[in-house]
């Protein structure tokens, strides 16, 4: 039925696409699976059974589930709150808010955590001013499962925000008007109409946030290890630190547990989205708009507070630590120095290289994924629900397993030169690029699929009647109507990959360093001042790129650039 209803152009394209998916999503997962099971023997202690029988594995699983779930909840609250306010109300300076909300993704989570630890720690300049700083060495509430979840939530809030925004833009106004006619209060409208109508995007955003939290290593490493709070990615890292001969299969085994968790999550997602498939895009009414009236000032203030916590304070912390000679020194006229910047720009050839490499990787990954997701999303939407969810979960797995494990899979796959053409991808940027494609496919695809499922089928049918073939329909009808979702997907991929660390950490090689690797290596070898300086530059670079995009906005379809009205 599927194939029958497609024309020949799409038929070979679909074949190509499914091959591509098999290559970049399925292959790494399968490779890990084989790694996990090859050393299974029937003796009592094979690596996999060791892993499975260890009480710590299950504790880590439980903890992972707890922190990711709580983090997802926070991300959903934060991201959807922001999305609702900035896309549906008459708040002032809307573009600025959106712009600022995108940036926390760019600040390494370690930096955010550290600046909070400092802000509320014994050395806090703020608390010390009022003399209420805690004593040296007292416990900090950030070191807790909830602290981890909070940071995970902040990191993934923009995922929820962007996934949701497209749908909110397409909610027809008359839905709300009908509810107002029934005398529903603004609050009831929100609970009864808007939230359920945007459920599929909320669920998609939440799924992205969950999966991204599940695979995150940096945050639980910083806040969990000190209190011996194990999650799966840190457990995996522990396993690797053991250097034993079995590490690969142990690590692969643990990753398979994460993959199972993802599959379970996908089932939940499917279930939640089942009844939320209705056409919203294509209604020819005006978009929704709420007048906040007197609540506008307080709302703006609340947004400002949230932003200063998740963006301004960490950013200031980051900037300060880039201007001092060494870690822990106060910033004043005596200590102020631009040495870090000078050193970085003049002495380190790798800096420029890393900027170019990461910039290219992020740009091309985003571009290619956007290109792939258009036909892919279209084809997937045409598959029966059940097949679609299986394919979608397979695509999700690479994003969920910790980057370092994915990198292992890629090394295992590509360390040898490719057969037949005898070219080695390993040790080039190419392998990082492939790994990014594999890792971030689901990030780009999720918003696209959601948007496509909202599309009123009769719009495409009308084009069919006009005689348009699949490709033409895709380009003329579907793409323009779901463009904001595509751009949101591409933007997310760009933002995530520009300072991606864990995948490239194992895959980089001399000359192919990425920004994430550069920052991390500097930081790890004690040059955290240099690392901060680069982080500042990355934030600046991304912010100016985003600002540049706003200039293009008038020539692009409406709603494509989130921070442009």
């Amino acid at each position: 039925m599927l194939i029958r209803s497609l024309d020949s152009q799409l038929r070979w394209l679909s074949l190509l696409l499914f091959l591509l998916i098999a290559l970049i999503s399925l292959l790494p997962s399968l490779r890990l699976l084989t790694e996990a099971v090859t050393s299974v023997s029937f003796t009592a202690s094979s690596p996999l059974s060791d892993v499975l029988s260890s009480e710590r594995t299950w504790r880590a699983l439980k903890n992972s589930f707890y922190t990711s779930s709580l983090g997802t909840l926070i991300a959903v609250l934060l991201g959807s709150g922001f999305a609702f306010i900035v896309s549906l109300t008459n708040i002032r300076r809307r573009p600025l808010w959106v712009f600022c909300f995108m940036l926390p993704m760019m600040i390494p989570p370690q930096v955010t955590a550290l600046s909070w630890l400092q802000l509320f720690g014994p050395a806090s300049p703020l608390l010390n001013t009022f003399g209420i700083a805690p004593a040296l060495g007292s416990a900090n509430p950030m070191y807790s499962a909830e602290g981890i979840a909070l940071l995970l939530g902040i990191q993934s809030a923009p995922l929820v925000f962007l996934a949701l925004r497209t749908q909110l833009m397409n909610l027809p106004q008359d839905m709300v008007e009908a509810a107002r006619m029934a005398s529903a209060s603004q609050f009831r409208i929100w609970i009864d109409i808007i939230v359920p109508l945007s459920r599929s995007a909320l669920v998609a955003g939440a799924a992205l946030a969950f999966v991204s939290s599940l695979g995150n290593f940096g945050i639980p490493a910083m806040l969990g290890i000190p209190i011996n709070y194990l999650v799966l990615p840190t457990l995996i890292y522990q396993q690797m630190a053991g250097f034993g001969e079995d590490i690969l299969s142990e690590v692969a085994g643990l990753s398979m547990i994460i993959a199972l968790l993802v599959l379970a999550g996908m089932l939940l997602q499917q279930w939640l989205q089942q009844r939320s498939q209705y056409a919203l895009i294509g209604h020819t009414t005006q978009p929704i708009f709420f007048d906040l009236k007197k609540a506008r000032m307080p709302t703006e203030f609340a947004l400002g507070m949230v932003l200063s916590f998740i963006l301004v304070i960490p950013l200031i912390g980051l900037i300060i630590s880039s201007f001092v000679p060494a870690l822990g020194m106060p910033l004043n006229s005596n200590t102020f120095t631009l040495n870090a910047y000078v050193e970085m720009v003049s002495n380190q050839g790798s800096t420029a290289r890393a900027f170019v490499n990461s910039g290219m990787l992020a740009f091309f990954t985003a571009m290619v994924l956007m290109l792939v997701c258009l036909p892919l999303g279209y084809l997937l939407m045409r598959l029966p629900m059940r097949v679609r969810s299986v394919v979608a979960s397979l695509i999700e797995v690479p994003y969920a397993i910790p980057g370092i494990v994915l990198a292992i899979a890629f090394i295992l796959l590509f360390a040898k030169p490719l057969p037949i053409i005898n070219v080695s991808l390993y040790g080039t940027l190419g392998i990082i690029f492939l790994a990014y494609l594999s890792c971030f496919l689901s990030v780009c695809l999720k918003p696209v699929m959601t948007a496509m499922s909202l599309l009123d089928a009769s719009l495409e049918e009308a084009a069919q009647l006009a005689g348009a073939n699949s490709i033409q329909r895709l380009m003329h009808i579907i793409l323009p109507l779901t463009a904001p979702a595509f751009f949101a997907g591409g933007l997310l991929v760009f933002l995530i990959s520009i300072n991606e660390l864990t995948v490239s950490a194992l895959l980089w090689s001399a000359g192919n360093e990425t920004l994430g690797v550069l920052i991390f290596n500097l930081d790890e070898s004690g040059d955290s001042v240099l690392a901060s300086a680069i982080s500042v530059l990355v934030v600046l670079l991304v912010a100016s790129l985003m600002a540049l995009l706003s200039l293009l906005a008038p020539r692009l379809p409406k709603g494509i650039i989130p921070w442009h009205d």
Partner: protein
Amino acid sequence: MARLILHNVCKQFSEQRVINNLNLSIEPGSFVALLGPSGCGKSTILRMLAGFEPVSSGEIRHGERCLSSEQQHVPTEARNFGMVFQSYALWPHMTVAENVGYPLKIKKIKGVEKEQRIKDALSVVELEDYANRLPSQLSGGQRQRVALARSLVTEPDVVLFDEPLANLDRHLRATMEATFRAFHKRTKATIVYVTHDQSEAMSLADHIAVLHKGQLVQWATPEELYNTPKNTWLANFIGRGSVLKVAAIEPLQYVKTDTLHQIVQMVNASAATSSILIRPHDIQFVEENVDALSVQVRTCIFRGERYDVELILNDGQALLAYSEYPMIEGSKHYVRLIQAWALEEDV
């Protein structure tokens, strides 16, 4: 219960002025229809009454209370109005029963009473069996009926209907018209009813406002409107009939057979200064005699109960008549005009 007053209401969408200095005074408990060609601003008026669109200038009052003006705006939810949308505006995530029950939920009506009222509303629109369907699984007309049921389930002060029967077949329309009448009788709500179907408007409404390009053309009872339309545009718009150019005659009076035949036959390019309206049932086919006008059949179209016959007068003007029997195209006949209504010219 209070009078609904539109005072000098204007509405502008960016470049275009859509409603122009509208004045209406709608008695409490009356049933008013807004009639007019597509795009004349009917829905816009309803939306201003409901409070979805602010007025560009002028004022809307409900009794002493100012609902909308340039300075003030009472939000929809504080108005206790009900509305059926032209686009239905069903909530796609709720089943039919949930859609219909939502206004009750908001009014905190629960349990058995809620169930009963939902059931009643659905049975009025003949959709009891569809209570658990989602709107996406309904046909066009079924959706419209759900929207209808939803608007009638509570008892608002003012109910606004935007083409509520456009997608329903004749029998369902008749049933629904009866329902509206009963509802109106029972609740004494003020009803403002937008429709493009004149027969619907005439049979339901106490008063009809006819709009043209955002302007009020006539405000009258159905009978007045049908029998004594003001100008040629209105005569063309309301009911079926033919507007003929005739020799000069005092407007706004009835003209009977003799004078009528005279002024119709006297017409020539320079003398055609007045217009009259002839309804098709005022045309009788007769045997040839001195009193009769000779005509030729241009087209004859079957309409169920009778045939629509388009006749051509000697001077080339067209005349619509009814016939019980099919007539051959091109054949010649004689007719007698019983009466006609003399019209004002359009401004």
